């Protein structure tokens, strides 16, 4: 799966599929997923619970076996080539997982030694995530937030070029969330590619430069965050004669909905086109507001459509 086209992609999957077999039959967790994460920046990975985000991440990291499809990290096919690229990848998958009777430092030291990483890097990682002074405590005594910090410290041991973080702010207090968000943003700006799987959409919108949205294991949308938000720009207009305005706009590339006393117009056209169309029809605007959707709106719209589609088409095999 190595080609010129993939040279600038840190993560790439093609036709990725994962099926789980059980007593109740086969369940498809990921189906024909084409994922492309460009080098550098923070890439959001969004999807409702059970949409296949974690399964996809686990397949990329060799923890789960793909039923079908191809995957590559840094242009190297995985899982076969994982040993060649794993030193460039740091990851937190789902909840932090460490030995409970070991101290935080012992857990990090064991992982560092397995890669011949110097003890100084353990100190640096502990310091970066703000666990200095508590690293000698047993892991089982940590709060969830401290466990998350330790997991992030573990990813920093290898000085990774790709950081895969699955819900990294789970259990953190607001200050902790802000710190981690800043850490992620700083890492993204420093050239590290961060794949951020999160259900906190405001967080993704704040730190991500690009995003992929999946539902029922399928790709729903992918691209720059700006593009994803702009794809369904709408305007709220207030006019004296809503019926006349509706008739005038119906002839153009507009999708018009009544929204209380105002109209909501969805279009790819610029606002000037709306004023011109209405002016030519003798309808005069008293108010025009660009209603820019947030990522949550886009996400809910896409995933609800997918749920409907899935109900009709079936997402299970």
């Amino acid at each position, binding site marked *: 799966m190595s080609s010129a086209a993939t040279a600038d992609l840190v993560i790439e999957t093609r036709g990725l599929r994962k099926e789980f077999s059980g007593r109740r039959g086969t369940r498809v967790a990921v189906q024909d997923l084409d994922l492309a994460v460009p080098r550098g920046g923070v890439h959001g990975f969004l999807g409702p619970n059970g949409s296949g985000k974690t399964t996809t991440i686990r397949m990329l990291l060799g923890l789960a076996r793909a039923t079908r499809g191809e995957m590559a990290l840094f242009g190297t096919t995985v*899982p076969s080539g994982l*040993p060649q690229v794993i030193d460039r990848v740091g990851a937190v998958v789902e909840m932090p*997982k*460490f030995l*409970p009777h070991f101290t935080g430092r012992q*857990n990090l030291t*064991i992982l560092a*030694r*397995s890669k011949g990483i110097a003890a100084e890097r353990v100190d640096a990682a502990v310091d970066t995530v703000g666990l200095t002074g508590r690293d000698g405590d047993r892991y089982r005594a940590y709060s969830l937030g401290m466990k998350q910090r330790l997991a992030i410290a573990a990813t920093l041991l290898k000085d990774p070029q790709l950081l895969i973080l699955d819900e990294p702010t789970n259990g953190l207090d607001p200050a902790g969330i802000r710190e981690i968000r800043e850490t992620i943003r700083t890492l993204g700006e420093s050239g590290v590619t961060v794949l951020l799987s999160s259900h906190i959409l405001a967080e993704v919108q704040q730190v991500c430069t690009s995003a992929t949205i999946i539902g029922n294991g399928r790709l729903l949308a992918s691209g720059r965050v700006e593009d994803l938000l702009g794809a369904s720009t709408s305007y709220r207009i207030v006019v004296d004669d809503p019926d006349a305005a509706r008739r005038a706009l119906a002839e153009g590339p507009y999708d018009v909905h009544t929204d209380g006393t105002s109209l909501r117009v969805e279009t790819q056209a610029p606002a000037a086109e709306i004023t011109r169309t209405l002016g030519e029809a003798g309808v005069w605007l008293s108010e025009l507001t660009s209603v820019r959707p947030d990522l949550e709106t886009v996400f809910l719209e896409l995933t609800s459509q997918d749920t409907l589609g899935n109900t009709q088409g079936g997402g299970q095999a």
Partner: protein
Amino acid sequence: MRLLGVELTRLRWRRACLVLMVASVLVPALIWAGTVWGTRPYSGAEVQRATEQAQAQPGFDQEVRRCERKPEQYLAPDQLPVEDEADASEQCRALITQWWTGLFREPLDLERELEGSGIGIAIVMAGLMMLLGATFVGADWASGSMSNQLLFEPRRLRVYAAKAGAVVVTGLLLGLAVGALWWAALAGVANARDLPIADGVTGEVGWQVVRGAVLVAGAGLAGLATTMLFRSTVATLGILFAVVIAGTFLIAVLPFESPERWMPHLNVVAWIADGTVYYSDDGQTCVDDGTGMVCSGERVLGAGAAAAYLLSILGAVVAASLATFTRRDIP
């Protein structure tokens, strides 16, 4: 080698493993103390007091006279035939005195311990090491830290080999060290008591220590492999319990000829003791000893055959756990 070092460190830092290693030293130490205590020589005062008490009991002289009349019913075959009456009287008096005093404590005999407590410490250590192997990797599965480890070293075969290597190395070193110390301490006691050590016993002890250490290491590997297969320490303990309880019954009812030969515990003993004798009801060999047909089901199970049997079981478990570990998804 680096991964092996990491796993040895992980094992050293695991408190449950440390407790089991300490138990592997303490339990043999207790067995040693029991052996030393149970073979302590009687003091002269003890012997004299017991003798006086025995000979003062009513019926003692009558029992001696009965022995003198029919020495073949009392004395051991190597004491027969008795040359003269004085000898018979002396031997019978000594024998009846021993019986009536209850001074039956045998002196320390390393050759006898080879088939007794020597086997015992190897089996106890093997059981503890099996628990150690199980709990060592069981914690990785229970905490989910196995996935963390694989994010640093994705080559699962290497991870498995390092973990197995750590348990085998620990088992071998512990088995050799504890076994050697145990026997050295016992020999020291025999020496202090001026008890002779038969020719060749030292060599047999050495080989038993080696075979015991191999058994201990193999048991650790079996515990680890079973837990890697079922991904749970509890499951491993359940399997062990089932093997001990149900396995014995199962083998007994299966249509094997001489099912005793397939009992795991018999094979373990045969391996440590360099062969053992067992009895089977199937295909008894009968001979006419002049008084009639005497049948015996006595069979010998050699160390080689026992090793082949135990290695087959261990190999099957390791192969199955290795196959599942390298192929199944990691939670």
